[in-house]
Structure formats: structure tokens, C-alpha cells
């Protein structure tokens, strides 16, 4: 997984509550059997005027210039500023892959849906939860200042604003460590393989019917 340590980037505001994973990456693109290539279809239905399908030449499609992702000033954005319950809906990890494939490394919001949040941790997409009033202040500053960039410093657990103010944030120590070191979960878990086997053996004794798959 991708490491995140310090990240300095342009912020793109997405001023909607409950941005769902169907909107982040519509279902027709979930038919891929790969993890890459979803970026061009990030927010497909908001981003283009026509209906997108896999295999199309997306570069020639008519873009919806009212949608913020298409605004010239956010072309290099790598930090997404969102609202309440970001990433709700389907469990599709493709939503995280699409955001990252497009170039986003950090999403900041007042709250995230649980499955999306969890998927983000597995892929090195840093999700930061901030209070609603701080989010509101960031929305105002981003909109008023073209090229608005912030520095996200994960080891220090703070965000440095252009005016040099810093905002600290909380993060689960386990997630923080994994992001900084780019660790693979499976490898970590398999360090406890003996404990898993012991647990399984006890379970086989107490609930043998769980180990009797009929065919």
C-alpha cells in the first residue's frame, strides 16, 4: 500500500452531504477485474454530460464544466474537502481506487461512512475527520483563495494552512502507523497465525457444525 507521511497539495471542495460510492464510481465501471484505471471515471455521472461505459474513449466525452472536478483551478487537487457521511452506500473499494487513481491522497470531512473509511485505510488514502465548524472555515478559505494548498503532516497529526495556522487532528494509532510505513495488513495478521489456529481449534470443539460444509 502507498505510504503517506507529509503531503502538500491543492484542496478541492465538494459541497454535498452524503456523497455516496455510486456517485464516486458508477456501477458499470465495477466490471473491471483490475484495481487500476478507475480515475477517469471518478464521479462519472457528475463529471460528463453523456452516459459513460467501460471501453469508451473518455477523452472525447463532453465534460460538465459546472462540476468542480472540471474547474481549471482544481486540476492539480490532491486533497478532497467533503461534507457529512462521505462515502456512504455500497462497499465497493473501487471508490477508493478511483479517488486515488485520479490523484487524491487525502480526504477531509466531518464524518465518513464506516466501510469507505475502512477501505481507505487499506489503500493509503488518508481520511481526516475535523469538526464541522473547522470544515466550514476551510470551505470558505478554499473558495476565496484560488490555488489554496495545505500541508498535511501525519507524523505531527496536524494540517498547516497557508496562513501558517495549524489544525490538529486525531487518528487511530494503528492506522497512523500503517499509513506511515505503508504496511500490508495480511502480513501483519499472519504474524499471529498460531493464535488464529489455536482459536480455530477451540471453535471446532465448541461449534463443530460450523466446520461441516455440505455440498
Amino acid at each position, binding site marked *: 500500500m502507498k505510504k503517506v507521511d507529509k503531503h502538500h497539495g491543492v484542496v478541492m471542495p465538494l459541497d454535498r452531504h*452524503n456523497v455516496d460510492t455510486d*456517485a464516486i464510481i458508477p456501477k458499470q465501471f465495477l466490471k473491471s477485474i483490475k484495481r487500476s484505471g478507475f480515475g477517469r471515471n471518478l464521479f462519472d*455521472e457528475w463529471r460528463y454530460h453523456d452516459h459513460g461505459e467501460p471501453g469508451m474513449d473518455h477523452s472525447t466525452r463532453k465534460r460538465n464544466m459546472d462540476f468542480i472536478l472540471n474547474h481549471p483551478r482544481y486540476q492539480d487537487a490532491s486533497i478532497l474537502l467533503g461534507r457529512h457521511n462521505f462515502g456512504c452506500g*455500497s*462497499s465497493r473499494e473501487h471508490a477508493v481506487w478511483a479517488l486515488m487513481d485520479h490523484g487524491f491522497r487525502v480526504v477531509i470531512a466531518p*464524518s465518513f461512512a464506516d466501510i469507505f473509511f475502512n477501505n481507505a485505510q487499506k489503500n493509503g488514502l488518508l481520511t481526516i475527520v475535523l469538526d464541522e465548524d473547522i470544515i466550514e472555515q476551510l470551505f470558505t478559505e478554499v473558495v476565496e483563495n484560488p490555488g489554496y494548498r495545505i500541508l498535511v503532516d501525519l507524523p505531527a497529526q496536524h494540517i498547516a494552512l497557508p496562513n501558517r495556522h495549524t489544525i490538529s487532528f486525531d487518528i487511530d494509532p494503528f492506522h497512523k502507523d500503517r499509513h506511515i510505513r505503508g504496511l500490508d495488513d495480511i502480513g501483519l495478521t499472519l504474524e499471529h497465525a498460531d493464535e*488464529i489456529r489455536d482459536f480455530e481449534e477451540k471453535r471446532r470443539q465448541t461449534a463443530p*457444525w460450523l466446520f461441516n460444509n455440505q455440498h
Partner: protein
Amino acid sequence: MSSKTLYDKLWNSHLVRQDEAGTALIYIDRHLVHEVTSPQAFEGLRLAGRTPWRTDSILAVPDHNVPTTDRTLGISDPISRLQVETLDQNCAELGITEFLMNDPRQGIVHVVGPEQGATLPGMTVVCGDSHTSTHGAFGALAFGIGTSDVEHVLATQCLILKKSRNLEIRVDGQLAAGVSAKDVVLAIIGKIGTAGGSGCAIEFSGTALQAMTMEGRMTVCNMAIEAGARSGMVAVDDTTISYLDGRPYAPQGQHWDRAVASWKQLHSDADAAFDHSVILDAGRILPQVTWGTSPEMVTAIDGVVPDPDHETDSVKREGMRNALAYMGLKPGTPITEIRPDHVFIGSCTNARIEDLRAAAAAIRGRTVAAGIKQVLVVPGSGLVKRQAEAEGLDKVFRDAGFDWREPGCSMCLAMNADRLAPGDRCASTSNRNFEGRQGQGGRTHLVSPAMAAAAAVTGHFTDVRHQQD
């Protein structure tokens, strides 16, 4: 020992280890797999030179991409076909049990698991699909996971988790005739919002839940995720146990007796403490209809489309305006004057036999109303389809002018050929009314099976309580 909630008991009985910060390793008993969220997980496993930890815990079935029309022709969309074939190959290669597309047991993974008895009380059940919460109806801890976690469970039989908070949602009293489990869960979401259960495991309880069949409980737990909770659950009782008796994957003989004895412990202790509680009066719940693009944008059949100008929160107000523009609705319009042109009866929420019976009963000898272009009835599994046909329900639907199809996810998320065109308005028994969910530009109103069928034959949303005489 102190008193425990059902969720506490399920958590504790699957805890392999836990560190000081509360990060836990939780053992997974049942892993359900479908074609959309698994290919990258199998690929990752292979690239790392790993093999599945316990193949007998896995049951696979293709559902999202499969056609609901004649299957002898195969899947015409090459991209959908590749995804289903990739699942078939992965399962064959690794010795994983899969119900292939043409197997009579094939269907929506969340219908198939319980129907086979592959979902049992006291289990942890995961699947790369957010509606895995459905299986919590059996007193199981069940939740959806992303593809990286699918790979993690394949490789280790465990998940890395933090414990959620306990949320009790109690619905006491008796539901009016014509009011169903779907109306109950939509009313719950209307009350607590789509993030109301974030970070929580929900236990649905109360006399209304106790009176529900397993099908009804599954409908309620299915939409826990629409209230923001990854898992929803209901305590085990005699209804649970008699549903499972004799199912192919359920224990038999002396294992059955031992299992039943242990399942009877699967309820919250009388004085168990919940972090939050929400209480609803079943008698006050009316048939529900969503009017917007989030399941929390819901009202009762006797209501009207709300006016954004009356909303004080500016972001919410803007959200309502966007939703009404997308849905093509004006504030103040009575719900009963909204006229769908499509009806979809199906999905992991409402495609079980009881749902089809309720839909058939609501038709009452009438036929599709003028202005309705298509009514799809998509059973949840091949076995549900067979049962419905044995009861003559297919004939009731066909005589009414409905399309009777093969099982799968179908127009719930429109990954196969079943989808709305821009501007189409659909009365749907599915679970999400997000923009574009049923096809780009499609407008979804979530309702119960009886409400969907009644809309199909009357041409507008109709209060099914008035049909019960």
C-alpha cells in the same frame, strides 16, 4: 460477569486477540463471495503466493451481473461475462463451492446464504457487499467489507476490527395490515438518518420485530447499512430456529441439538446497557415512500413532497433542492399523485417468497395501469422462483402484465441489462435511491413489495392499507 448485549456476545466469541489500543483480530466463520468485489482479491492472493485459509467457510455465487432473461444464451455483455467467468475460474482452481449461474440454487448472495442454512446464528458472516448486514437477522454478526478485506479473510480467516458502539432500535406494538418490514426500516431511517447508525452495531428488537418472519427481519437488517451501520441484528428465537431446521447447510442430528442449545443464548441480557436507544411505535408506522435521492428522504403515503424552503440547515436545503430537481418533483405534491412509469420488485431487500406473495396479493386481479412501461419481478433465487411458481404467483404476475424473470440483483443496481433510461420513474422494492443507481438519470422511489405492486396496477402510489378489507 456483567450483562452483555447480543453484539457484545458475538464479538467476544470471535475475538482471537486484541491490542491495548482496542484493535482486534476477529475470526470469520462464513465468507460469501460474488463476482464483482472478488476478482482483485483473488488476484492479490495469487500475486502474494498465498492460498485460502479455509475453503469450507466460503460459498460463492454470481449475482450482480447475471442476465434475468433466458440464460441458455449466456451473458452477452463481454465485460460482465468476463467477471462471472473469472469467479468460476477462481472457485474451480481453489476448490471453493460455487453455485454457478445455471444452478437452480443460484440467486442473490444475501438470499441464497440464509435459504441454504449457510448463515447460522452465532456466526460471523462477511461478504464484499454492504448489504451483508441482512444475515444479522439470524443472531449473527454480519457486515460488508471491501476487496482488500475480502483478500484478508481469504488469506487469514480473520479481520482487523475495532469494536462498534451498541445501538438498540426497539419497535414495539403491532403493525397495521398492509404495513411491512420495509416500511418499518424506511421509517427508522427517516427518523435517525443515513448516518444515524455510523460507528454502531444495531440490534433491532421489540414486539414488532419478534412478530416478524425471518423474511421480514432480513428486510430490516438488510437496510441497517442505509442507516449508516455496518451490521444490524435480531436476537434468536423460535422463529429463527424453525426457519433453519432441515436446510442443506444447517447442522443435523446431535449437532442440531447442540447448536440449538447454544443459539438460545444469543440475545441481549435483560439489563444489558446500550450506548444509544431509539424507540418507535409500530402502530404509528404508515406505508413509506422515498421522494429524494437518499433513503432518509422518505415520508408516509399520506404525506407530500417537502419544501426545501422550510429547511433551516443550508447544506441540507441545497441537498433537498438538488434531490427534487433530479427527481423532477415539486414541493407540496401529494405522494399519491406521483406516477411511476416503471416498477421493480426484487433485490436482496425484498425478493424472498413472502415479498412475492405480498406483491401478488396487492394486485387483486387487476392489470398494469396505463402509463406503466415495464414491471419487472425478479425473484431472489432459483429456489424462490420455483416456490413462487409452485404457488402460482408467476401466473398472477404474468396475467397482470408483469415480466417474470430469472434471479439476480438486476435493476437494484443495474449492472446487467435491466436499467432505467434517463427520466424514468421507478417504484422499487430495492434499497438505494441514489442518483443513477438504477440507470443514469433514473428516478427511484423506495417502497415495499405491496406498495410497488399496487402502484403498478393503479398507476400512482396508493395506500395499500385501504386495500386490506
